[in-house]
């Protein structure tokens, strides 16, 4: 029943995106990250929905919003393994697991205060070392995803 309702909620979207499989403690981080407070179109934010895989999960449905690759990368850093669904004319056009990319350009801020990227107007570049660690291209310092600050 819960599942049906959720499906209806997604299906009701004419054009837009659905972010699914959000860990419940990350939902409002994503709301903040996407600056949804200022969004003028229809936004549905749901939390603690039942999930077979996760137990409980969060979900965000945004009308008229299609994410750029940079935005998707940001989402992946904050919350790896969420699912993104793109809907056009009431139909699911794309469904993908958002995973941490190999390389992140200008998404993450380096935690090293003496890294050149924190002292020069330039883009940061980070490489994915493993599923929890990023490495700064410039100073070489590694950071755990838990401690990441976005630019």
């Amino acid at each position: 029943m819960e599942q049906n309702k959720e499906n209806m909620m997604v299906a009701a979207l004419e054009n837009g995106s659905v972010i699914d499989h959000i860990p419940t403690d990350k939902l409002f981080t994503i709301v903040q990250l996407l600056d949804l407070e200022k969004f003028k179109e229809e936004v549905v934010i749901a939390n603690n929905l039942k999930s077979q895989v996760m137990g409980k999960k969060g979900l965000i449905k945004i009308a008229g919003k299609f994410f750029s690759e940079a935005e998707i990368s940001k989402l992946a850093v904050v919350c790896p393994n969420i699912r993104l669904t793109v809907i056009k004319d009431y139909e699911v056009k794309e469904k993908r697991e958002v995973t941490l990319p190999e390389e992140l350009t200008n998404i993450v801020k380096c935690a090293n205060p003496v890294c050149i990227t924190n002292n020069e107007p330039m883009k940061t570049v980070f490489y994915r070392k493993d599923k929890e660690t990023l490495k700064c291209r410039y100073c070489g310092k590694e950071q755990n995803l838990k401690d990441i600050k976005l630019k």
Partner: protein
Amino acid sequence: MFDEDNQAGCSLFYKIIRTFVRFFEDRNNKDIKYMENRSIVSIANYGKEKIQYLLNMAAEFEAHPNRQLLKGKVVATLFFEPSTRTRLSFETAANRLGARVIGFTDPKVTSSSKGETLKDTIKMVSNYADVIVMRHKLEGAALYASEVTNVPIINAGDGSNLHPSQTMLDLYSIYKTQGTLENLNIYMVGDLKYGRTVHSLLMSMRKYNPTFHFIAPKELEMPEEYKLYCKQNNIKYIEQQDFTEDTIADADILYMTRVQRERFTDLMEYERVKDAYILKADMLGKCKENMKILHPLPRVNEIEYDVDESKHAYYFEQAQNGLYAREALICDVLGITLEDIKNDKTIIG
């Protein structure tokens, strides 16, 4: 058999072909994501072949350090952070090869102090110089500089990150004194936590099957990330805190570093260990015949002056090797090959 005119003709033909090849290489390089040039930001990933190539080049320069190979070239030395020793070594290398040198030794007198970005300074100097040697207090500065210009950059130290020319001269000193880089017992002593030179040397030796001995006080021991690096690369290492005649008896290279007071959070600990890592002449009785003592300099009290008289002392020669290593690095980034250097007709004296 060529006469001299023929040889010159062949050499000219060879240079024209090479120019064409480089032109097309450069065009291809522009397609790749980051601007690639012949910069030397790090040598940590150099293979054995490239290291040997640069060592051979340095040996050529040691045989004949004074040349006009870089006549008409301008070398810029941009020292955003003062470092007299490294700057003098690079400037001497450039001068001895016939280049002219421009630059600054103190960023306070440059536009950096007015808020100019590193990018703008590098772009501006790129209009004047054929190669830029730079030292900067910020980590990653040299890599970034190499991305914003086509002029090759040589990293003369970027914060506590990298210092490839020091590593190159260390490798050259080891190679010269031991006749090989393979299978050596390298003892690193003192500040292994913050010592940039020991970290770089460790990484550069990974393909030569070394056995490292890390001798340091607890507070300044080799960081976990480098021990992990050793494990991942099958590099043997032994950690110890005792520094005695017996513990260094098996060393081929004794790499001394300075234990600095300001590195300690616990000054009681500093007082306890400050004299424990001083090398004295009477500790050299049992050491191997071929053992050499290296030190990146400046030293304070970690090597007593009576050690200077020992045949094992090599730190001043090591600094001199820096000149030849830097001559090699400058030529390499300018596309001058070992073959060019061997066939060089501009040798003076």
